[in-house]
């Protein structure tokens, strides 16, 4: 098959980007999307031109490195699929394919399709953990957790931190990402003790990092390659209200 690629090329965040067109012919529809980009890059290298920079690593859909916009959708057209698991047979012969980086103020462009998602790490650092030191843990089976809660916590914790939710959101909100971590920990007894503090800190960091507010359009979940659900956002809101209320009561009592 043949494809016409329009790819966003940008030197760095301060540079002005530009769309460039590349044509690839005789592409095997059974190769992956990123293998198609490998072919393009080898071609560019041989022509002594700068290859396209994009993030990727495991190519199994779990590390969360890859991700950019394909025809306006994060990770492209296939539901519940990261770019690295997308194959060329999802496209038609002679298709025009538009590739752009995730667009969000909190994800500055590093180069071409690669963006800086350190803001996600800073959200986690501000509270996305249980405060326990190595060696202090009690015997594992001394904590019993209902299977239902453990399974729910797992589903929230399956987030790969790729940033598709932010890119899909018209406000560039990081609510789905943040709420997945808040949910994971608040569903487990180990995480509940610090719950009120955690949600307040993580939401504050999310705001400081310049992510927008959530207006519950659900675009994030729809585009999430791991199908992290909207229920996480509801849980975060609940945790947040409880946290604010307890802060208010504390102040009042003082």
């Amino acid at each position, binding site marked *: 098959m043949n494809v016409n690629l329009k790819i966003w090329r940008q*030197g*760095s965040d301060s540079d002005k980007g530009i769309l460039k067109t590349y044509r690839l012919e005789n592409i*095997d529809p*059974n*190769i*992956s999307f*990123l*293998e198609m980009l490998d*072919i393009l*890059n*080898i071609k*560019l*290298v*041989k022509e*002594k031109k*700068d290859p396209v920079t994009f*993030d*990727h*690593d*495991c*190519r*199994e859909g*779990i590390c*969360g*490195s890859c991700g950019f916009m394909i025809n306006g959708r994060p990770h492209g057209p296939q539901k519940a*699929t990261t770019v690295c698991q997308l*194959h060329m*047979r999802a496209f038609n012969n002679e298709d025009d394919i538009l590739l752009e980086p995730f667009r969000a103020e909190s994800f500055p462009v*590093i*180069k071409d399709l690669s963006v800086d*998602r*350190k803001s*996600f*790490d800073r959200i*986690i*650092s*501000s509270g996305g*953990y*249980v*405060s*326990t030191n*190595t*060696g202090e843990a*009690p015997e*594992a*089976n001394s904590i*019993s*957790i209902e*299977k239902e809660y*453990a*399974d729910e*916590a*797992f589903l929230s*914790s399956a987030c*790969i*931190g790729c940033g598709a939710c932010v890119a899909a959101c018209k406000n560039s909100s990081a609510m789905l990402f943040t709420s997945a971590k808040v949910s*994971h*920990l608040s569903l*487990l007894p*180990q995480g509940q003790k610090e719950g009120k503090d955690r949600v307040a800190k993580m939401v504050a960091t999310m705001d400081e990092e310049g992510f927008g507010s959530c207006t519950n359009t659900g675009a994030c979940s729809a585009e999430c390659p791991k199908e992290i659900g909207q229920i996480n956002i509801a849980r975060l809101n609940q945790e947040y209200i409880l946290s604010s209320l307890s802060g208010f009561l504390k102040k009042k009592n003082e």
Partner: protein
Amino acid sequence: MTEFNLFSKAPNGELHTKWKEYKESLKKLAPEDANKYKVIVVGTGLAGASASATLAEHGFNVHAFSFHESPRRAHSIAAQGGINAAKNYKSDGDSVMRLFYDTIKGGDFRSREDNVYRLAEISKNIIDQCVAQGVPFAREYGGLLDNRSFGGVQVSRTFYARGQTGQQLLLGAYSALSRQMEKKKVVFYPRHDMLDVVLVEEKAKGIVTRNLINGKIETHSADIIILATGGYSNVYYLSTNAMASNVTANWRAHRKGALFANPSFTQIHPTCIPVKNDFQSKLTLMSESLRNDGRVWVPKKKNDQRKPTEIPEEERDYYLERIYPAFGNLVPRDVASRRAKEVCDEGRGIGPTGFAVYLDFQKAIDEKGEDFIREKYGNLFDMYQNITNENPYETPMKIYPAVHYTMGGLWVDYNLMTTVKGLFSIGESNFSDHGANRLGASALMQGLADGYFVVPHTAMDFLAKEAPLMKDITDRPEFKEAKDKTESEINRLMSVDGKMAVDEVHRELGKIVWDKIGMARNETGLNEALAEIPKIKEKFWNDISIPGSDKDVNQELEKALRVKDFIELAELMAFDALDRNESCGAHFREEYQTEENEAERNDQDFKYVAAWDYSENDNPKLFREELKYNNVKLKTRSYK
């Protein structure tokens, strides 16, 4: 008489109490004293993140480096199956001793008793620690932790989180690390490639890094350096490892004097999706559990082009069932892999390349029903279909072995210190615990054992005997020299100006390593590899092209720096495989096999760890550490 000139420094004493007593005897530092020391950790996967977090909790100032943008991207995240621990929650007779024995035997009696016993002992603490962090392991309806059985052992000791155990454990370690980052006890350097170790008065006191965003070559000093930089499966070009996994940090340490142990011990996993074409960039594992219901076969006839469903039963060769009537399709990884290669080499392989065999579920579907198979393996069948566009409910899967783990690595003593003082190596990057073959669900266990529970103690003891630097010493000439050398190497690479992409040279290297130092090796092939690899090296230094600038994001340069080291490593692997005139575990030398084509170990002459010293202009020099077995009996594995 073999000369042994390398010693593990394991303490004397009873196997069962050795680690506990030794740990108590180690020197400790109070947090306010630990605060005077700086520790560099390179690599923030399971081993590196857990070590960084724990050392920071003890009061040390940790500077952690990764080429990834975030610790959560490390390849540990891709581990599927689970993590072993001798908890005996199933009351099926499991114990530390049993896990210890299974691991030693699985490694075909080429690992150190003392280290493996310690690993088995610590396995229990790991699960406690991870649960306390909030790792959502699978649970039973009663609320307690669930276990499953795994590859070749007779007990249920594997803890898991669906098929994403590595992800959940890594996110746990990452959360502990993030907590210390918030407390400013860990400074994280994302997108930094380590390119050299700096020695000051024969001790590791710093590193040279390249900032992958702006290309800046930086130097960093510290009281000790810990390498947690993973394995080197990508020397084969195609492997199940992530694209950027590499040997560079280890290789640079090796060039500075750290011995490299058992480099040719590389594990080949039998059930991976086969290579389709030359553009293939990496391989995907299909869980070993599929062999419980799938039957492996090839046509009896050579070069049979018929569709699998058109080949009648009597014209099929279910070769594993034929050769191993007792274990059938469930023989261990190394055996299943080797036999697949054998039938394909005979010309009976299937698919467009001829390098694949069928994994057929028809019998299981007929007997147990499609729903049963769907419930058990549905997600794997979907994954297979997504990648291959073939429906495994209707036509057999095509599979072929692929490289996915390296047992070899930097030689370390009982304290996990390399032969360079102050330079430690943990996780897959060291050679220590798996001998000639790793058991399933043991890699996660080892990474976390080293990071949470071993190196924090042994490194503290080392530091307690060292005066702290208390200042940045990167103005010393040793740092300038290392930095200059790195810069001139990069300049040399940038100026090659040939016509090949780095990937193309890497692919050629991978083919040689796969053909000659892969699933089966022989003297002729290994000598051919030693003759061919220098030609690849020449091609690399004359024909590659790296467009753009080294002062900018340059993924081609990043690859070139890695491939350069893979080429040198490949040579060492050939030397190592040539030296070991026996077959053991994943190292199968065709000259040393029984009449039934099984691996023939030679305990008389090769019961040692082969650790190699780097030499710039000469062949590598071999050092040997004798392996002593005081608690287990050496046996021959049999699966007939």
